[in-house]
């Protein structure tokens, strides 16, 4: 039997910002790269994101944030994943995130942060090279 692996990605927007064009651009690009992208829409709590990621059995979670709350919400997602024993899921972040904050976020367990202007091919490559399962 031929086993076929398709990378599954959850794209989520935690917190209160109401602008998701960036998230949709990424979702579309990953789709075009042959991945299955589950888009969960705006204003998600970390709890909702982690629960959806578990039910959908995704390989990757992509968090997008523009509101400035990344230092709180990103680590919270990682924490919940650990609690649920789902920390084998690769977590990446993107959006308007100051460079100074990136080291802290990586320390918390976010694998990579993509700021505006990152070529999409770079994001695709990163995901393909780093999925853990």
């Amino acid at each position, binding site marked *: 039997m031929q086993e076929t692996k*398709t990378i599954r990605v959850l794209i989520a927007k935690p917190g209160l910002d109401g602008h998701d064009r960036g998230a949709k651009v990424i979702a579309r690009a990953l789709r075009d790269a*042959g991945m299955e992208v589950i888009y969960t829409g705006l204003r998600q709590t970390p709890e909702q994101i982690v629960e959806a990621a*578990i039910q959908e059995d995704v390989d990757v979670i992509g968090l997008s944030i523009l509101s400035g709350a990344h230092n709180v919400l990103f680590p919270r997602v990682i924490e919940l994943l650990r609690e649920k024993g789902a920390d084998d899921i690769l977590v990446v972040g993107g959006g308007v995130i100051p460079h100074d904050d990136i080291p802290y976020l990586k320390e918390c367990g976010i694998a990579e942060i993509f700021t505006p202007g990152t070529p999409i091919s770079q994001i695709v490559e990163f995901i393909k090279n780093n999925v853990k399962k």
Partner: protein
Amino acid sequence: MDLAEKILQKDKRAVARLITLIERENLEAREALKKLYKYTGNSFVIGITGPPGAGKSSLVNELAKKIREKGKTVGIIAVDPTSPFTGGALLGDRIRMQDLTLDEGIFIRSMGSRGSLGGITKAAYDAVKVLDAYGMDYVIIETVGVGQTEIDIVKLADTVVLVLVPGLGDDVQAIKAGIMEIADIFAVNKSDREGADRLVHEIEMMMELSQKDFDFRPPIVKTVAVTGEGIDVLECRISEHLDYLCKNGILEQKRKTRVKEEFMELLKEHITRLILQKNESKIDMLVRDISNRTVDPYTALDILTKEIF
């Protein structure tokens, strides 16, 4: 503990994992399904189908909430199209189901159609079994936004709800073959829009013209999924349909037919694979001969089958 045992002990991650393995056609998935099979057959399967943009996901969201109010659990399989060009898919139905995510009695899984043309993915057949064994009282399958002939949902669902919206076509559409024939229940969604009453009327007309004697005449329910209007009536009609199926032994009959069809599919697939694997070079040779017109396809078939059987 293996996957099957974990699922029987209500481990959500194991459910999610097994569905992934099913999608990947992994051998481990088969072993788990072998063990789970005897625990299946208890869920009612509701199919929600209809054209893109009809509001199927919002309707599923509201319907699931109504069923939950009765204390029943719901598994949801939401199918969205896979790109035939890249194999990628954007699965966006969860957006309309955000308020269900944290409900312990609900499990939502998005699936790509992955090359299937019938409106649902092949893997959905087994995913239903997983949710069934997991103990969900209802399994709702939302198909990809179907056109006129993607009607595989009838093979899988006990009750099919066809969601239509005003403004998609004239009354000739209503008497065409295909999708209009599969409904056990019609939901006229977005019925706050102009043309809703006319659509209801056209569906009624279509049933009048039918020569078929309806034991259960498909009811038509007007809904507005985003406000929840009409969902209680829809839920009621679904229950009535299930009652009807149970009381008349139709459900049993339906499921027997389904078991046979599924087994035939499995058999066809397996035999085809065996033949292709064991006769690869012979088949290549025959195909070459057919292309060169030195043999015709029917004679080639005779040659091959004589060698196998």
